[in-house]
């Protein structure tokens, strides 16, 4: 196979580490799955790499492009395994992290705990200085005080420090001077400045973002350096790229200095993958639905771009029914692909509560002991057990037959724990478990669609993860989503996302400005400053000028509101001159048009727009993109054989809409070819997943091997 170049993606998840290897010439895809090694994730990384290379007999030198998705940043925070970090802020505000938002995360729990600050109070230092909201100096920086802090940091053996001064977003002058002095006093100190990491207003959120960055800088830098060493030893000389929370990638060098941008690196890959898969089919608006062992995640892509949020909390899970109560995690204000995660995965537990209600999740049996049917000691019924009892899973073909599932044990568990307390038979109870899990997932889907003003009838769903394709058809039915796409190998589809994205850097500045007083020239120069920064970064990462793209945006609100709505500035509206990104004419007409679109976006999101109300421009954003060529995916041919070639037989499967077991055709996905069509009810089995097609629906196989499921009859 010499001569060919390869793209390799390695995704380290909680349970498994997946590798995806694509041949640039032939488009052939190989995958490998190895257990993750949480104590040192780089071991699993190297194991997956070796397995993938060996399995396909590819020479390490042939890897031209290498991308990594990792949860190492988040895990070190959640597990409290970050090295000693300090915090420096303006005098009078050293308790910013302790006080946080002054709220409790649960309303009726007298045993609640407030979130433990990532920096203890004795490592929070105050420095005399003060800016006002315009960024003007009210009180000059006390440089001697900074030197004293430097001495204290040395004495306490602090390696990393976060600096967040009041109104530092408006003017970085004091933060930068603090950094200079600290560096003079201790050149080895790792310094994170809020004005560089996240120059937006609202001090606690900016400080939290900056502190998280400072906490994980040492961990991530060491981890990535270790990986690069390992790659060197293995003979791989491709540049190591890392997936960020926003769905783009950056070089390991960049990731090591601003690791807060990669806290949700892993889950982002799934949405990027869904976007790519749907994009090949010409679908630009979609829901990504990823259901694994412990949770289900729903994400939204509009116009070919994953939706990102800046209101993310590290370590907090979405809890439907908990309303607006937040403060369950550490907030960050860097862009994160917007995912709603609910506790409904294959391992989620089902039980009957004290009032006689049947409940599912969010507690999970995890991989160990796992569902009852695994026979590994699990005693509480799970979603997987219910699927098995209903005939939706094949007990003899789980993980391609590697693990036999115990149907009788699953049925007995459901009878004892759920059916008898409710006076139901086990099948009714199993169906109930599925219906309730589906209802929870529908809430998640509603959160990313209707709640944000997006009509699910105009979207395509891409379903993956081991359990996703089993539930997706029913969810689409309920949500009236017209088309469902199930990619090949749904269990590793997420890792594909690593290989189908671009270099991406986000910049933003807060300058609160009344829209009707906005000075186009000043705004233009603000954008150009950020674009220049982006261009420098991309150039360092090796992007050619013709592959660079800069997207401008303004986050706006009605003057007086606090939640901003992002509005993209269209390139057409800006470009009069050559498209080199430096010579754009941003004028009052461009701004007026953006304000008009803000009214429309506001109405879309919240049901009402108020065109007569004054508008404020709040944050100005630039996304700098360095395009990376996409690998070609393999196509599958029609082999001239009919669909009956893939048919394995029939099995009795329970369908809620029929209210009973139905004799259902079973197909082997590996033998389905392009052009084949399967009418529901049907079950399509493959090594790492099972797809359920309901009556009234029809699955067709496209040239990439995707299953396209839509209402319809047999061919």
């Amino acid at each position, binding site marked *: 196979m010499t001569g060919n170049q390869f793209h390799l993606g390695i995704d380290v998840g909680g349970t498994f580490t997946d590798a995806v290897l694509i041949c640039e010439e032939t488009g052939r895809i190989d995958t490998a799955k190895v257990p993750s090694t949480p104590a040192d994730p780089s071991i699993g990384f190297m194991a997956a790499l070796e397995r993938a290379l060996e399995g396909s007999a590819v020479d390490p030198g042939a890897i031209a492009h290498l991308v990594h998705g990792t949860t190492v940043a988040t895990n070190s925070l959640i597990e409290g395994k970050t090295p000693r970090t300090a915090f420096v802020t303006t005098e009078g505000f050293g308790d910013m992290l*302790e006080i946080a938002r*002054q709220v409790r995360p649960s309303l009726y729990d007298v045993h609640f705990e407030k979130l433990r600050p990532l920096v203890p109070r004795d490592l929070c230092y105050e420095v005399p200085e003060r800016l006002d909201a315009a960024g003007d100096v009210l009180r000059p920086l006390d440089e001697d005080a900074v030197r004293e802090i430097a001495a204290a940091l040395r004495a306490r053996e602090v390696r990393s420090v976060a600096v967040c001064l009041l109104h530092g977003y408006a003017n970085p002058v004091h933060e930068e001077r603090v950094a200079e002095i600290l560096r003079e006093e201790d050149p080895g100190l790792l310094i994170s400045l809020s004005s560089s990491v996240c120059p937006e207003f609202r001090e606690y959120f900016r400080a939290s973002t900056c502190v998280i960055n400072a906490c994980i800088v040492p961990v991530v830098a060491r981890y990535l350096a270790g990986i690069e060493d390992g790659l060197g030893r293995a003979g791989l000389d491709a540049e190591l790229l890392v997936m960020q929370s926003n769905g783009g990638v950056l070089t390991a060098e960049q990731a090591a200095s601003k690791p807060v941008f990669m806290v949700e690196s892993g889950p982002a890959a799934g949405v990027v993958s869904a976007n790519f898969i749907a994009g090949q089919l010409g679908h630009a608006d979609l829901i990504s639905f990823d259901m694994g062992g412990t949770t289900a995640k729903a994400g939204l892509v509009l116009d070919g771009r994953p939706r990102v949020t800046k209101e993310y909390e590290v370590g907090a899970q979405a809890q439907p029914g908990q309303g607006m109560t937040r403060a369950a995690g550490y907030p960050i204000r860097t862009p994160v692909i917007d995912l709603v995660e609910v506790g409904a995965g294959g391992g989620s537990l089902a039980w009957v509560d004290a009032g006689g209600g049947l409940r599912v999740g969010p507690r999970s049996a995890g991989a160990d002991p796992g569902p009852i049917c695994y026979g590994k000691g699990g005693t509480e019924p799970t979603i997987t057990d219910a699927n098995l009892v209903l005939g939706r899973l094949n007990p003899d073909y789980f993980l391609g037959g590697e693990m036999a599932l115990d149907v009788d044990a699953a049925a007995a568990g459901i009878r004892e724990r759920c059916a008898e307390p409710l006076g139901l038979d086990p099948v009714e109870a199993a*169906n109930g478990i599925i219906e309730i899990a589906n209802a929870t997932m529908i809430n998640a889907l509603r959160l990313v669609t209707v709640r944000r003003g997006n009509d699910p009838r105009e979207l395509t769903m891409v379903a993956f993860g081991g359990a996703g394709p089993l539930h997706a058809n029913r969810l689409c039915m309920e949500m009236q989503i017209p088309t469902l796409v199930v990619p090949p190998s749904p269990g590793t589809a997420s890792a594909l996302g690593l290989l189908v994205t671009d270099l991406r850097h986000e910049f933003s500045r807060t300058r609160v400005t009344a829209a009707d007083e906005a000075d186009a020239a000043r705004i233009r120069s603000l954008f150009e400053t950020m674009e220049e920064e982006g261009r420098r970064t991309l150039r360092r990462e090796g992007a050619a000028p013709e592959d660079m793209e800069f997207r401008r945006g303004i986050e706006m609100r009605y003057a007086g509101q606090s939640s901003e709505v992002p509005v993209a500035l269209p390139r057409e509206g800006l470009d009069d001159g050559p498209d080199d990104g430096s010579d754009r004419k941003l004028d009052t007409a461009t701004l007026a048009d953006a304000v008009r679109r803000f009214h429309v976006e506001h109405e879309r999101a919240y049901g009402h727009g108020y065109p007569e109300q004054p508008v404020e421009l709040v944050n100005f954003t630039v996304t700098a993109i360095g395009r990376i060529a996409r690998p070609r995916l393999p196509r599958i041919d029609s082999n001239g054989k009919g669909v009956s070639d893939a048919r394995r037989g029939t099995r009795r499967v329970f369908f809620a809409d029929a209210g009973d077991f139905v004799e259902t055709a079973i197909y082997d996905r590996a033998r389905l070819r392009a052009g084949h069509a399967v009418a529901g009810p049907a079950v399509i089995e493959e090594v790492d997943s099972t797809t359920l097609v309901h009556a009234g629906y029809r699955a067709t196989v496209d040239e990439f091997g995707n299953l396209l499921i839509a209402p319809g009859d047999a061919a």
Partner: protein
Amino acid sequence: MPQRESRTVSSVDPVLFEVIRNALVEATEEMSVTLQRTAYSTNIKTRLDYSCAFVDANGRMIAQAFCQPAHLVTIGRLVPRAVAEYEAEHGQGTLGPGDGLLVNDPHRQASHLNDVFLITPFFHEGELTGYVANCCHHVDVGGGAPASIGAFREIYQEGIILPVVKLFDGGDLVDDVLKLMLANVRAKKEVAGDLRAQHAANEIGLRRLSALWERYGAEMLGSYMERMIEYSERRLRAELAELPRGEFAAEGCLDDDGITGEPVHLKVRIRFDGSTARFDFTGTDPQRAAPMNCNLTQCFTACVYVLKCLVDPDIPLNEGFYRPIEVVAPEGSAVNVRPPAGVVGGWEVAMRLCDIMFRALAGPMPERVPAGTKGMICHVGFGGEDPGTGEYYCFLETLAGGYGGRHDADGPDAVQTHIQNTQNAPIEETELNYPVRIHEYSLVPDSEGAGRRRGGLALCREYEFVGHEPTFTTLADRARFPAHGLHGGGDGKVASYRLISGGEARDLGSKATVQLATGDRVRIETAGGGGFGPAHERDPDAVLRDVREGKISRARARAAYGVAIQPGEWTVDLAETRRLRRAQGR
């Protein structure tokens, strides 16, 4: 493809039950998100001082999304009353689609005047099917001081009273009502913007409910809502059967009523009999011609809150949860006020009731009850002419304090307690929008009630006003009576409210409205939480950690905890500590 459910409703399908219940709550949560995102005043958009609910056609609370536990009873009690009053005046069935009722009158069982409710009827196929409603704490509703908090004798001095009036009629805004309201308030832009947000939220609620009724039909939903109410009641009664039976009493005092220096004496007897909970406030002081009175709704809210904390938090809150609860509050007392007394401090009273009720239960349920907390809402309001814009501005916020120690954990520092969970306003955003500078926002060391499990620390906020002379108000408490310790734990430090003018500090007391000069500062230190268990039983290492973090001074560690820390280093002097503790134990 959309399939209508065709199942009959003869028996409850436990699955459908769960699905419908979640969908109804979800509709109110969507209202909640809309309200927050589109609101204008800091108090609503950032501090989340609002709630949303769905009430059925019989006026029964079915589902709610609340940010503030304080609102958990109010909407359910107010809606049936407001609708009945409106229909009594205008005729049965006069409410139609697109109407919206506005009300804030505490003497009609709303809460205080700042909490403005918007009630919108929900029609399905021409039938009145229920109501969506929300409640927002507006930054100003007129009255004697900016932000409409302040100490006055009568409700007429507290702001504009909205009986039950139509703000929307058949989908159209009733301009005259809006005009009348805005003419009476200071922060006109914010109030108008927040009313728009309230309307937008109800509209979203109606859309979601319509889709649900379309899908399941009125008969099935009616039947399931009935079951949801029964379910909550059944679960609460099952919990009540497990609670210790008997009668448990406690009492306590508010600093003063805001007009006279007389403390307001509050008293409760709680009786659990295995299937009901009775809260009897007989013996509480008569109402005052002052702001420190609450109405029956607010009193009931405090009782529901306390009970909810004692039982499985998972029980859905709806009409069924209220049924086993009986509240006896003498009419004309400080916990069931009659017109024309002031009520703007009503939440302050209700908040303190929570502390007192927990205190009553501390003996029989030591593991479930925290020591005394900051025990007040701690309102801070100011306003005046913004020197930058020339417009009248108003600002309101509430400050956190210490939580009480628990049997197995310290009380958290600087946190909102009980019926209140409002976020702080970011300093940068506040300074950007208002002519104020904040000089300090910090924990108050040594303010905790000492204990085996210590109370939480209070916090401090210091304001300076730039280039103008605003009116500044505190409506708070705890300057005289501290948060109580439990089971041998110490009391928390009391709060202080000081004006610093021309280099001199003057104590304002917990309820004051003052005219400031430019450059004046106000420094507020809230109250610490009470301790749990004897302080000399506290783990010396925990004391050491607090000293090291600067939360407790070395001197206090020694005096209050009997823990000696080696001079110049971070270790406990064990011999000296043993000696000190032996002396304290005696």
